[in-house]
């Protein structure tokens, strides 16, 4: 029997369950390796070579190289693990979280100062809140070079 996933109707949200964990095992363990200063240095010196030491999928490696955290999460990444990449890049958790919304850093920071993203319209898929699929990307960063 497949896992029961009552959380699949929440917009803009991926729950890190056993299926995601299995999919992302090597990606997340790669992230974990960045907890060591010498590994951070080796990764920074040659990212692709360092990634090639891990049995990750090509999509996972490309998502890391692109620093596309939504893509990383779709490939099984978990944000607490992915945060180690951000730390290696000297990014704050706010910069990382914001990068997944399509907003610029400033737009996202302003949203938080004004009380954060509203829950209204963002509880269930099919509503009309700003986290719904038909309203992406949300900000100027996501529209850069877009059409």
């Amino acid at each position, binding site marked *: 029997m497949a896992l029961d996933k*009552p*959380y699949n109707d*929440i*917009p*803009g*949200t*991926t*729950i*890190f*369950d*056993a299926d995601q*964990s299995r999919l992302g*095992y090597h990606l*997340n*363990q790669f*992230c*974990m390796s*960045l*907890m*060591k*200063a010498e590994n*951070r240095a080796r990764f920074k010196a040659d990212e692709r070579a360092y990634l090639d030491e891990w049995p990750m999928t090509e999509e996972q490696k490309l998502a890391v190289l692109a620093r596309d*955290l*939504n893509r990383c*999460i779709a490939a099984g990444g*978990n*944000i*607490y*693990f992915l*945060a*180690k990449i*951000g*730390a*290696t890049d*000297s990014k*704050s*958790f*706010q910069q*990382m*979280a*914001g990068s*997944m*919304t*399509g907003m610029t850093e400033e737009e*996202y920071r302003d*949203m*938080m*100062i004004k*009380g*954060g*993203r509203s*829950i209204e319209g*963002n*509880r*269930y898929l099919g509503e009309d809140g700003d*986290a719904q*699929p038909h309203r*992406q*990307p*949300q900000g100027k960063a996501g529209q850069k070079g877009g059409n």
Partner: protein
Amino acid sequence: MAKITASVYSSHVPAIGAAIDLGKTEEAYWKPVFDGFAPTRQWEKENPPDVVFLVFNDHATAFSLEMIPTFAIGTAAEFQPADEGWGPRPVPKVYGHPELAAHIAQSVIQDDFDLTIVNKMDVDHGLTVPMNLMFGSPEAWPCPVIPFAVNVVQYPVPSGRRCFNLGKAIRRAIDSFDKPLNVQIWGTGGMSHQLQGPRAGLINAEWDNAFLDRLINDPEGLAGMSHMEYVREAGSEGIELVMWLIARGAMDDVNGGKAPTVRHRFYHVPASNTAVGHLVLDNT
């Protein structure tokens, strides 16, 4: 005999730790957060615990995906502040209380909660940020700490009911420890926040404040809240709030005693991506 004198609840946002470490606590953005904990820092000075039993979650620091214990009790003599990727936080080493921790493990496991016993563990911001918020930034922490890590990283996390009942078992264990220790139990994490995907930045102040009300007045009912309500209403990382129910389950009123006194309550948005909530409930 040992006794749980109070429970303390608090968010453990990593950016709060960074603000402390970088000397930003007086800046306009951060000052309201730190001011909100000032009455508790004073109260902790006047009512110092002998031991803190600190419920927190590890954020892919001590536990990778190699092992994911649902409940892990730190029984070591000391715990190092972890390097989470930015270098270790410049905070004092955390000293444990191996004797009480071993007693709690023995009692709680025989009470049907299968704890993982951990004799080596670095502790991350989930533990050290609440220490700073309650004790400031001393040269050495004022008391030993028993770290108690809960899995809230990989779904499913333990239910609120399970956490609440575990708190009761921890209470029974502490009650039966044969030394006159004043023990505080802290529940950390939350409140509403989501760190991932297009819904990142979610805050639900109305829900958070209702949670605080119910934690004070209706903990038994609150323990029945489903995982889905936490995730849907408080964000994918808001589910950390189940940990607060462990601390609440250890209080007098849910174990046949009288209702606690609310010493302090504080709520603030934002700290980075997160709503900061804080509560002090006193049994005395």
